[in-house]
């Protein structure tokens, strides 16, 4: 298969993943298939411990699947995908680097020109409302600001696809809404694709074009919701107030509480 422009950025086909635990086999993912189209935000919700994070690690090439295949732009995944940004609930900022130093990390590893990289990193911090904090060490920043630095680090390498694993879960409600707004604006403005793993159903519905509901372990997609809400989809408060929002949330909640096997 060759990667053409039409191939979706990410396709997961019949992926299963199991671990050996002593003499027994723990099955985490069972025959899971999903697709992420260009410029699309897709959320994955599932009961806690269902293997969402394992799925993300398989998709990002950190763990090999037991069976099935992962395609990036139509090409079978070998190693780590080049054009993906990865962000977890933990900000994973390096305490010995300043905010700017942390943002610059990805560009540095990819061997970018130093001054150019610093300019881009500084600009990204500014766009995320961290103007004037470039030289601050992470230890001096609040949780919300740290996660913004992590977001800047993720976005500055200009990834086509963002893989986010509960990135805002540890933030308070207000910080969360604000950073969600900024993420949506930055992603939708540049037509990046996002795979967002979350346990927050409201976050999933307000952020996404589609929501995939996963089953208990071994997990697979039990239901897909196409989220059709009015507005620009970059204002999470507006999305929460809009007509139909609560219906999606209720319905997804029901799916999560009575998982169909």
């Amino acid at each position, binding site marked *: 298969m060759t990667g053409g422009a039409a191939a979706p950025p990410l396709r997961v086909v019949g992926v299963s993943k199991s671990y050996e635990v002593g003499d027994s086999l723990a099955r985490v993912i069972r025959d899971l298939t999903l697709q992420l189209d260009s410029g699309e935000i897709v959320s994955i919700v599932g009961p806690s411990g269902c293997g969402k994070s394992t799925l993300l690690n398989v998709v990002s090439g950190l763990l090999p699947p037991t069976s099935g295949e992962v395609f990036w732009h139509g090409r079978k995944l070998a190693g780590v995908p080049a054009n993906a940004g990865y962000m977890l609930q933990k900000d994973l900022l390096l305490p010995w680097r300043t905010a700017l130093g942390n943002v610059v990390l990805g560009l*540095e*590893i990819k061997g970018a020109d130093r001054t150019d990289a610093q300019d881009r990193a500084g600009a990204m911090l500014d766009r995320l409302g961290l103007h004037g904090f470039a030289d601050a060490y992470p230890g001096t920043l609040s949780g919300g600001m740290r996660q913004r630095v992590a977001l800047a680090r993720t976005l500055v390498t200009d990834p086509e696809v963002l893989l986010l694993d509960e990135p805002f879960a540890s933030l308070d409600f207000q910080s969360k809404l*604000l950073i969600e707004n900024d993420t949506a604006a930055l992603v939708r403005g540049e037509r990046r694709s996002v795979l967002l793993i979350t346990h927050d159903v409201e976050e999933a519905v307000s952020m996404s074009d589609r929501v995939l509901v996963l089953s208990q372990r071994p997990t697979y997609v039990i239901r897909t919701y196409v989220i059709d809400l009015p507005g620009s989809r970059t204002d999470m408060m507006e999305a929460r107030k809009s007509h139909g929002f609560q219906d999606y949330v209720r319905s997804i909640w029901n799916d999560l509480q009575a998982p169909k096997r």
Partner: protein
Amino acid sequence: MTDAALTLLPEAERRARRRTRLSRASAILVCQIALLAVFLGLWEWATASDRAVAFLFGSPSAIWGFLVQMWRDGSLFRDTYVTGVETILGFVVGNVLGTVLGLSLWYSQFVARIVQPFIVALGSIPIIALAPIMIIWFGTGLISKVAMATLSVVVVALVTAYKGAMSVDPDNVNLFRTLGASKLQIFRRLVIPSALSDIFAGLRMTVGFALIGAIIGEFMSSSEGLGHAIFKAGSLYNIPKVFAALVATIALALFLTWLVGKLERLLTPWKNVG
């Protein structure tokens, strides 16, 4: 700024807070000096009345007398300098060797598992038992003392550096991998800086070990150094002079510890904030 959490306090407020902190620090210092003065006073008083007691325990005034005498004849500086050089050289060689080996074990879990029992075995050797061999191998001069100090340091440095390297957050390693980092890049940009705080904990601990190693070496066979002075004065039942050399040893240890702390603050500036 939507969630700015870092704003500077007004200048006056900051000054006031700094003053409060300072006055508490000076109160602690005053109490420490008072405690020392009471201790020395009691010592002096207890030894002033009885010559036999003064012979066995020395007295602060006699110790001071010897310190002044050793300062005048240059031996105080000379012995401290000799022991200091032996300690610093052994400290540096042992830590560099141990840290490099310990960190590089991060590279291969396989090799680390193979060498682990050998490291434990080496670590369990009482260093003093190696002193005669060191004297035979390296003579009675500087090198044998440096070797003793190095041996006292190297295994601890190796173990702390390895522990530091292995305590890197695996999620952080994954982050580096998704950014396309090579193993060398992960090692240089993540593992080494992560291990720094453990390495510095090891440095602070091994200053004392290096000094012990050097002094044991001097006890065995030497012609100068604080260990030599202590040993010689002890054999002549000159207790105040033993204490005087001990005071110099303590001063040397404090100075070297202070130096390491200074180095740590210099090399890990992110720890001083907040």
